[in-house]
Each structure stands twice: as structure tokens, then as C-alpha cells.
């Protein structure tokens, strides 16, 4: 079975990152924004692992582990904020959370 060029894994990571960024910019529901953030972090992890696999080093997977930790902490805080917003404002629409506008 033939091997995978490292470029193609990086192209896949770039496509996933672009899709996640599109989701963050386009969607208004905070839940979908958080999901798109997860997609972006996952794409970054894929780029790290692809780089580490290209050079045969373990550092790519170590960085993927750190990205995973970051994603877990971000999800905990983000979902707690989302629940607080849902409890106090009653909506998840990001455009309606405009109380801080001066």
C-alpha cells in the first residue's frame, strides 16, 4: 500500500480549519460557534500530528496532547458561559447579547 504525502494531510487540516472558521463567523447560535471552535482546534491538532509524522518525531503528538487539554478547558468554560447566558438572557443568539454595547 502506498504512502500518504504529508501535503495532503496538511491540505485536509487547512480545509477543516477554514470550515471551522466559516462556522464561527457565519453562525449566530453560540452552541454552533463553540462546535466550530472545536473543529478549528481539531484541525490544528491534525496539522501538528501530520508534521510530527512527516519527520518521524514524537513532538507533534505531544503538541496534539496539549491542544487536546486546551480544548477540554475551553469547552468547560465555554459551555458554562453558554449555560449562564441561557439562564440570564434566555437566548443563545449571539447578536442579541448586545448589552455591553456603549
Amino acid at each position, binding site marked *: 500500500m502506498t*504512502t500518504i504525502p504529508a501535503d495532503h494531510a496538511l491540505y485536509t487540516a487547512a480545509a477543516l480549519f477554514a470550515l471551522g472558521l466559516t462556522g464561527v463567523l457565519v453562525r449566530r447560535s453560540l452552541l454552533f460557534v463553540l462546535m466550530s471552535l472545536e473543529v478549528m482546534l*481539531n484541525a490544528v491538532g491534525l496539522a501538528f*500530528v501530520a508534521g510530527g509524522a512527516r519527520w518521524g518525531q*514524537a513532538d507533534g503528538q505531544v503538541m496534539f496532547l496539549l491542544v487536546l487539554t486546551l480544548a477540554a*478547558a475551553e469547552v468547560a468554560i465555554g459551555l*458554562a458561559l453558554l*449555560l449562564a447566558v441561557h439562564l440570564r438572557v434566555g437566548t443563545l443568539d449571539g447578536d442579541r447579547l448586545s448589552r455591553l454595547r456603549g
Partner: protein
Amino acid sequence: MTPTFVITAAVAIIATTLVITGRNAVHALLYLVVSLLAVAVIFLMLGAPFAAALEVIIYAGAIMVVFLFVVMMVESAPVPGPDQTLKDARLWVGPGLLAAVLLVELVVMMAMGVPGVAGGEAVAPQAVGIRLMGPYLLAVELASMLLLAGLVGAWHLGRPAERTVPRPHAPAPAVKRETGP
């Protein structure tokens, strides 16, 4: 360039597209799980089995379950009742088909061998652990502190509102004022 990698990348991109264009949050979560599983298969192809296992266990397992809890708490009408879930094929046929494609690819790779990266070689979990506990020990400690900060922050934000200490010079109930725009 292997066909298995192209198919897996296509599954990941299709599932992610359906995540960001989805209307129902539960369906989007199912497609997000499929996208994460596809990325895990890509990790396996790239010669990173440890990262693939962590992707399935932590991302697709733990983080997505937390997402599912929150969706169940905030969505007004997220899913139909338990009797209709399996009969309505629209709910599960899309993620099921994509996941079945990934399963077939796993079986094919088990039979014919994992492709690997051009110019590189597979990195065993032992090498990752040795790097992690050696030169990256400070990063591991920082990650543990980050997780602790996330835990404390989530606990603080998730406290019920009536337990907050009232301000000394504002005897009016501060909780009522925050409801509704």
C-alpha cells in the same frame, strides 16, 4: 496518494460541512462526532496510534458528551421521543452511513496494512510518553494548571444564581433584573 486517505478526508470534510450548516443541534453533534472519528482514522494512517486513541476517547467521547448534556439542557425541542428515534431514519442514516464508511476503511487497513506517511515513520506511544515526561514536563504541569483553572472557572460560572452573595448597598433582588432583554 492512497484512496483510503482521500475517502477519509472526504468524510471528515463532508461531516464538518454538515456540522456548520446544520439546523438541529443534536444532528450537528452527531456529524461532529463522525468528523472527529474521521480525523482519528487519519491519525492512524499517519502513524500516530496514540493520538488516534486519545481523539476517540477524549474528543469524541468525553467532550462530545459534555456538549450533548448542554444541548439537552438548552434546546427547547431537541429530539423526538424515544419511540420515534429509530423509526425516523432521517435522524441517524447520514451519520450512520459516514461512520460505516470509516469502519469499512478500518477493516481494510487491518487487512492490508496502515499506509503511513511518505518520508516519515510511525511514532509509537512509548516515544510520546518519553518526550512528554522529559523535555515537555513543564508543559505538562502548565496543562494541569490550565485544567484546574478550567475546573474552577466552570464551577464558578455554574453556581446557582441565588447562592451569590448580595451586595451590601443593593438590597433589591439582583437576580430578577437579569431575566429577559
